């Protein structure tokens, strides 16, 4: 694992928000290196700065101080066009609320990032069907999001996140709006994608089911990294943590 390069590097990142006259420091200096191909979970209670850190890694937000490197490129240096390009090609996003475009069919949702990338329509449709097949929804490609269940919508979203073969897939509470069984299926799917395709998966979550599949877990507390646990460490302490939190 250690010979793999760091796909994301966060160094001395702080982030403060202005809430009226009050300045809230959501992140108080975070250093983190994420290795290429690993399955990383960011855990923490709400309000811990977990989402802020997650948005930072995804290039959705810029740090107040400190630097975020994606593939050794400082994202603060990128202009709007380069950021769009980064989101389009390097990063795939999976959201808690699925966020499929309602007016488009499943296939069109999956091909949209490819359209942005300038992939010819036929190639995009072919790859889109392939990806829908990968998540087990090839037959439902002509359905609109409204005609799909939550789990199916999330599968389409996963297929969409892989459209331009990104290096990183960011999943923000991917199981947050799903029931237990469906959530487990989605987690298993993400894990198999990470294993088979070598995609780096970074997920922000407080779903303990995620712990079993993660290579590493980063615990965030009060704007700082509380601890980082490797997979083998994790199995020993899992019961303890679960008991403590719930």
């Amino acid at each position: 694992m250690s010979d793999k390069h760091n796909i994301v590097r966060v160094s001395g990142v702080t982030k403060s928000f202005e809430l009226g006259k009050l300045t809230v420091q959501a992140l108080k200096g975070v250093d983190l290196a994420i290795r290429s191909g690993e399955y990383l979970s960011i855990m923490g209670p709400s309000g811990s700065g977990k989402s802020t850190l997650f948005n930072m890694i995804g290039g959705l937000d810029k740090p107040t101080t400190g630097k975020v490197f994606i593939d050794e490129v400082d994202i603060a240096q990128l202009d709007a066009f380069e950021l769009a390009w980064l989101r389009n090609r390097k990063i795939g996003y999976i959201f808690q609320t699925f966020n499929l475009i309602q007016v488009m069919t499943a296939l069109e949702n999956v091909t949209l990032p490819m359209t942005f990338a300038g992939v010819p329509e036929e190639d995009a449709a072919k790859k889109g069907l392939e990806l829908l097949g990968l998540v087990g929804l090839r037959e439902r490609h002509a359905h609109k999001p409204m005609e799909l269940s939550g789990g199916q919508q999330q599968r389409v979203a996963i297929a969409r996140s892989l459209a331009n073969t990104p290096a990183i897939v960011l999943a923000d509470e991917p199981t947050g709006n799903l029931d237990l069984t469906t959530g487990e299926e989605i987690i298993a799917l993400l894990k198999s994608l990470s294993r088979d395709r070598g995609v780096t998966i970074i997920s922000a979550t407080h779903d303990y089911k995620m712990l079993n599949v993660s290579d590493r877990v980063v615990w965030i507390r009060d704007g700082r990294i509380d601890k980082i646990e490797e997979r083998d460490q994790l199995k020993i302490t899992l019961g303890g943590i679960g008991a403590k939190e719930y």
Partner: protein
Amino acid sequence: MDQNSTHNGLFSSGAEGISRQVVLPMRKSLDISIRSLQVRFFRSLITVMSLVLAVAFLAFTLLGHDVAMGLLASGQPSLQSELVKAGFDLAPGRYPGSYEVAASAKDRWIVILSLLVCAVGIVNAQLMAVTERFREIGTMKCLGALDSFVLRLFLLEAGMQGLAGSFVGAILGGITGVLVGMLRFGGPALMYLRFEDVAASMGWSILVGFILSLVGVSYPALVASRMPPVVAMRAEE
């Protein structure tokens, strides 16, 4: 897209075989906007309604003027005196000895006012539409959409709404204008009505409506396109 050249090759490892670009072809944008309009059909109908009314009023006024001009140009004194009786002011025309029907200042202000009210209505409706679509816009941006894509989608939608609304408004207002003219002056109103005048009036009405729609949407569309994706992600349902 010409921004390609400005890209400084930071991401040299990615995108094999695919040119370095972020694009949304016009055909695809048109496709997306048409479908967005279809899905929100009743909503866009309401947005368009104020435009229809304002343009109809404009066309009605212009056509009424055309009818009066036609009657005046007929050269029949009886019709001309009827015009004056009906309250039209005759002003000296472009050529010495000729007359034309003067548009009263009051009419003009009412038309301008109605167009202004309509523009405010469009801005309001489109701002709401933007709020409603925070998540959709944010998602598109996360998928790599540029500000200009979002701007283009909104402008296209408003343009189509504007054209359709103005067209309907111009026809409704025009027909009403001619009917009222016929009610006042009988058959001659239609007889002496010149086709060029009618065409010009309708054309103007549609153009004004179209421009009004685009002006009305420009601020909301700008708001939408500048929204950072992370703000869009925070938006609750």
